[in-house]
């Protein structure tokens, strides 16, 4: 197999890698904000439960979460059905392992990354001085207005560098979709490496990820610059 065919083969999987990346961002960015707000809730129970969920999601490997989301529902249904047989319950769960692996993969990634993003958002939110809320109140801003117009833009500006960090990690983490047999770029790279007994595909994969991250870095740099007018 020539270098060109290797690159061709692997770029076939690049689309799927991008799909994981963009869909994960699409879902985890807003979800993370919701989680962050729940975490800051004044109701103790909600805040504690959210804190616990975050600690589980950050404290267990993403690989494990991928397996749990992909295979967990099926094995859970098997267990429930056994109990159902035992106690003559009148229902029967019919869950099978998803054929379109993108669904469980994106769910697992989105939940996992939402947990990390939530903590980043929280760090931003808590860095805002109380004086700003008070000033906004005095000026007659409502609470949602204060949040959307005054607090959020500043928060986003402050957390951008940590966000870039996390997004760069996401690019590399997409390779973990291999654990559930999703045929993304790195999976195909492994297959080619295996059939050709060659390490070249791994080098190609490295270059692909690096270019991807260089683009991410460039875009995030631009975004940071465009928001720099908020700096004090």
């Amino acid at each position, binding site marked *: 197999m020539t270098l060109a065919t290797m690159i061709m083969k692997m770029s076939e999987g690049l689309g799927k890698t991008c799909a994981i990346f963009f869909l994960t961002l699409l879902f985890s960015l807003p979800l993370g904000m919701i989680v962050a707000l729940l975490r800051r809730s004044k109701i103790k129970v909600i805040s504690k439960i959210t804190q616990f969920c975050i600690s589980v999601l950050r404290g267990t490997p993403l690989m494990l979460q991928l397996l749990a989301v992909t295979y967990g529902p099926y094995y859970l249904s098997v267990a429930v059905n056994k109990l159902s047989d035992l106690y003559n319950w009148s229902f029967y769960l019919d869950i099978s*392992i998803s054929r379109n692996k993108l669904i469980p993969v994106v769910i697992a990634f989105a939940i996992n990354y939402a947990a990390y993003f939530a903590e980043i958002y929280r760090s931003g939110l808590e860095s805002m001085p109380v004086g700003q809320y008070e000033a906004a109140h005095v000026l007659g801003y409502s609470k949602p207005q204060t949040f959307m117009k005054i607090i959020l833009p500043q928060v986003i500006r402050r957390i951008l560098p940590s966000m870039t960090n996390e997004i760069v990690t996401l690019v590399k983490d997409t390779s973990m979709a291999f654990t559930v047999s999703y045929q993304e770029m790195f999976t195909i790279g492994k297959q080619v490496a295996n*059939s050709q007994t060659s390490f070249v595909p791994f080098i190609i994969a490295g270059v692909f990820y690096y270019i991807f991250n260089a683009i991410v870095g460039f875009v995030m740099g631009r975004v940071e610059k465009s928001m720099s007018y908020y700096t004090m």
Partner: protein
Amino acid sequence: MKKKVVALLLAAVLVVLTLGLAGCGITKKPSAEADTTSTTKTASSNEKKVFTMGIDAEYPPFSYMDDNGEYTGFDVEICKAACERLGWEFKVFGVNWDEKLIQLDAGECDCVWSGMTILPSMKEAGYVISEPYYDNTQVVLVKDSSPIKSSADLAGKSVAVQLGTSGEALLAEDGDCADLSATFGELVTCESFLKCFAELEGNGVDAVFVDAPVAKTYVAEHEGFRIIDENLGAEQYGIAFRADDQANCDAISGAVNSMVEDGTYAKIAEKYPDIVNNLLFLNK
């Protein structure tokens, strides 16, 4: 001043680097020569029967040249051990694979033993062929309830295969079963057989393409699955001897059998995890 210091530092780094690299190149050599001489010398002193094994030196893991330039591989190790057991001197001859049987007839080697597929034509031509020792057959594993009855029913279905197995190689674009895999709806490559079987159990895929011995073990231990055996990619490996050479075949087979019985065979096989599941003597 600053510039000079930087330049000096850079030069120093360069010198260290080049020395380091050169050092790496030099240290590797001696070990390669030490090993090759030891094997050839031992037997030549007294009058021993010399047994020359014909191999394809580019067929890992059965027969290949290792990093030290020595012939090794599963077949080579077994033959060497068998010769030791028989008190024969062991030699290796690298055949030209297309002309292996001619070279065997010419006496350049005493057997062809190198992951060689047994073909009916060999037996017809009169060659003495040993009992097959390796089976490359692949089977399709499906659920009991599945409507799939033959490999033709796999059209449009999604099929799982394990990365790096002979099954994957057969289904690859240049493999022997490429025509079959072209009919699949989707070929899912899993990183372990466990995942393949989990996918099948949970209806993530419709069938698993797997080595026959692996499938047999799985079906014996788990309920609700059945095997579709169509001799896909069926190949059995054996050893070829000259037509008038039943004696050598019997002697080698006898030695191999005794190695199977006392566990030497299994011990050598352990070093080759990729093929161990398909060795017929170990999976009877």
